[in-house]
C-alpha cells in the first residue's frame, strides 16, 4: 500500500485549550480524523492525550477552540450529546454491567420499546427485537458468543471488550473513540480486539485509537497523531517512520520530521 488516498475529514478540532487551575492540559491542540481510517493518538503521560479525547467525546468542555463534525461546528456539553451526534466512545475500564446479558448491555440506555399499546402505555421492552439485532451486530464484527442472553460476566476479558466495541460500532454513525482497548488484555485477546477494530473501520467508521502499546499502534494505525505538552507536534505515517523514531518524537528527543502524514 502506498500513500493513503485523500479522504474527507470527519472530525476536526482547532486550537483546543483546557486549563485546570495552573495546569495546562491542552495548549491549542489541533486534531484531524478522516473517514474510514484508524488514527492512533499517542503521547506521554500529561501530554493532554486523555483531555483531548474527552473533549472530542463530550466528557470535557474546553476553554477555547472549535470542534467540527462533518464540517459543521459542534458543541458537546456531555457524552450523550456526542453520542447523539454519532460519536461513540469505548472506555478503558470495560464499561459493562457484568450481571446483565449481552443484549441488555448492547442496548443499555437506548432500549427499544414494543410498538403499540404495550410499548406506549405499559412501556414494555421489545426483547425479541433487541436479541435479534444484538446477534446481527455481533455477527457483523465476527464476534462469536454462545447466546445473547448470557450474562457478560461469563465472558472473557477480550469478549467483554468485544461487547463494548460492538455497542459503539452499532450506534456510531461517524466516529468510534477507543481508549486503551487492549490495555487489560492478554496477547491472544488483544489480537482479537485489534481485528475487531479493523472490522469497525471496514464498516466505514473512523476510529480514534488511544494506546500506549507501540506494536499495536504500528500494527493497525493508518496515521499517528503525536501529542506532546498539550499540543499536536506531528502526524506520522507508520509506514514511513520507525517505532523508535516515533517514540523519540513523542518524548521530544527528536524534532518532528518535516514531511509528515498530515498533508
Amino acid at each position, binding site marked *: 500500500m502506498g500513500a493513503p488516498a485523500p479522504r474527507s475529514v470527519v472530525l476536526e478540532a482547532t486550537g483546543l485549550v483546557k486549563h485546570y487551575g495552573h495546569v495546562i492540559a491542552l495548549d491549542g491542540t489541533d486534531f484531524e480524523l478522516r473517514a474510514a481510517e484508524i488514527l492512533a493518538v499517542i503521547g506521554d503521560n500529561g501530554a493532554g492525550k486523555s483531555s483531548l479525547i474527552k473533549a472530542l467525546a463530550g466528557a470535557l468542555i474546553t476553554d477555547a477552540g472549535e470542534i467540527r463534525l462533518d464540517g459543521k461546528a459542534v458543541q458537546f456539553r456531555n*457524552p*450523550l450529546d456526542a*453520542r447523539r451526534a454519532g460519536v461513540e*466512545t469505548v*472506555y478503558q*475500564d*470495560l*464499561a*459493562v*454491567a*457484568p*450481571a*446483565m446479558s449481552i443484549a*441488555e448491555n448492547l442496548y*443499555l*440506555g*437506548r*432500549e427499544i*420499546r414494543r410498538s403499540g399499546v404495550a410499548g406506549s402505555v*405499559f*412501556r*414494555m*421492552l421489545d426483547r425479541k427485537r433487541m436479541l435479534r439485532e444484538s446477534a446481527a451486530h455481533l455477527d457483523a464484527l465476527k464476534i462469536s458468543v454462545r447466546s445473547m442472553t448470557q450474562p457478560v*460476566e461469563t465472558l472473557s476479558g477480550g469478549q467483554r471488550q468485544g461487547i463494548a466495541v460492538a*455497542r459503539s460500532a452499532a450506534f456510531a454513525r461517524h466516529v468510534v473513540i477507543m481508549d486503551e482497548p487492549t490495555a487489560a488484555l492478554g496477547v491472544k485477546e488483544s489480537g482479537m480486539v485489534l481485528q475487531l477494530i479493523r472490522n469497525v473501520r471496514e464498516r466505514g467508521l473512523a476510529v480514534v485509537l488511544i494506546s500506549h502499546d507501540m506494536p499495536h499502534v504500528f500494527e493497525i494505525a493508518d496515521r499517528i497523531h503525536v501529542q506532546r505538552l498539550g499540543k499536536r507536534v506531528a502526524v506520522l505515517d507508520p509506514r514511513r517512520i520507525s517505532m523508535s523514531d516515533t517514540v523519540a518524537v513523542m518524548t521530544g528527543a527528536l524534532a518532528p520530521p518535516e514531511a509528515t502524514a498530515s498533508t
Partner: protein
Amino acid sequence: MLALVAACVFFATQSDRFWTGENLSLVLQQVMVVGVIAIGQTLVILTAGIDLSCGTVMALGDIVMTKLAAEAGLPVPIAIFAGVGVATLFGVVNGLLVSRIKLPPFIVTLGTLNIAFAITQLYSRAQTVTELPESMTALGGTFHIGRTSVVYGVVLMLAAYAITWFALRETAAGRHVYAVGNNPEAARLTGVATERVLLGVYVVAGAFYGLAALLAVARTGVGDPSLGQTENLDSITAVVLGGTSLFGGRGVILGSLVGALIVGVFRNGLTLMGVSSVYQILITGILVILAVGMDQLSRRGAR
C-alpha cells in the same frame, strides 16, 4: 424457596394447626406489612443501597393518616393520601441526599430513621390513635375462597408485587435499576440517567412504606407510634433471604415475597410451638447472618 418449603414442612409436623387454611391466611396477614415494605427495600438494595428508615417512615405515615382522620376529622381518602405523601416525601429526601449529594445510603437512612421516629413521637405525643373511621380499616376486611378467608390487604400486597415484578423485568426503567446497582459508572457512560434512577427508587420505596402504613392501620385498627421497630430488619431479612444481593444489581422481586413468607412462617410456626418472642428474634437474627453469609460465599465462588 426451598427454605420456605422446608420451614412449612417442619412446622406442619410440629403443630397440626399450622397447615390449616385459617392459619396460612393468618400468616399472609402477618406478612403483608413487612411484605410491602420489602418491595421498597428490594428496589433500594438492587441499587446497592440500603434503607434503614423504612420502619419508622411507615410509622410516621401511619400516625399522620390516623391522626388526620380521627382527630382532625379530615375525609379518609385525604388523610390516607397525606400519610402516604409524608412517607413518599421521606423517600424524596433520602433519594436527593443519596443521588445528588452522594452520601452513603446507610448514613442517610440512619439519619432519616431517627428523624421520622422523633417526628412520630412528637406528633403523636407517644399516644396510640384510636376511634378510627371504619372505612380506614376497610383493607383489613375479608372475602372467602372456599372456607378460607382472605384479607383484601393481602390481595393488595400481591398486586404490588406483580406490578413491581413487571416494571423491573419488562421496562427500561426497571432494567436501569439493575444496571445502576451492577455498575453505576457503566450505566452512566452508556447514557442511563443514574441520578434520576436512584432518586426514583427511593421515592417509590417511600410510597410503598406509605402503603405499608395503610395496611398496618387496617390490620391493627389503630394508629400505633411504636410501629416499625421490627419491620425494619425483617424487611432486610426478607430481601436477603429472597436472594437479592446486598452488593446490588442482582435479585428478583418475587424472591423478597418468598423471603417475607419465610420470616412470617418462622414467626408463626414458632409461636404455635409456644416459643417465646425473644427466641423468635434470636432465630431471625441467625437467619439473616446465614442468608448474607450464603450471598457472600456464592459471590466469592463466582469470582
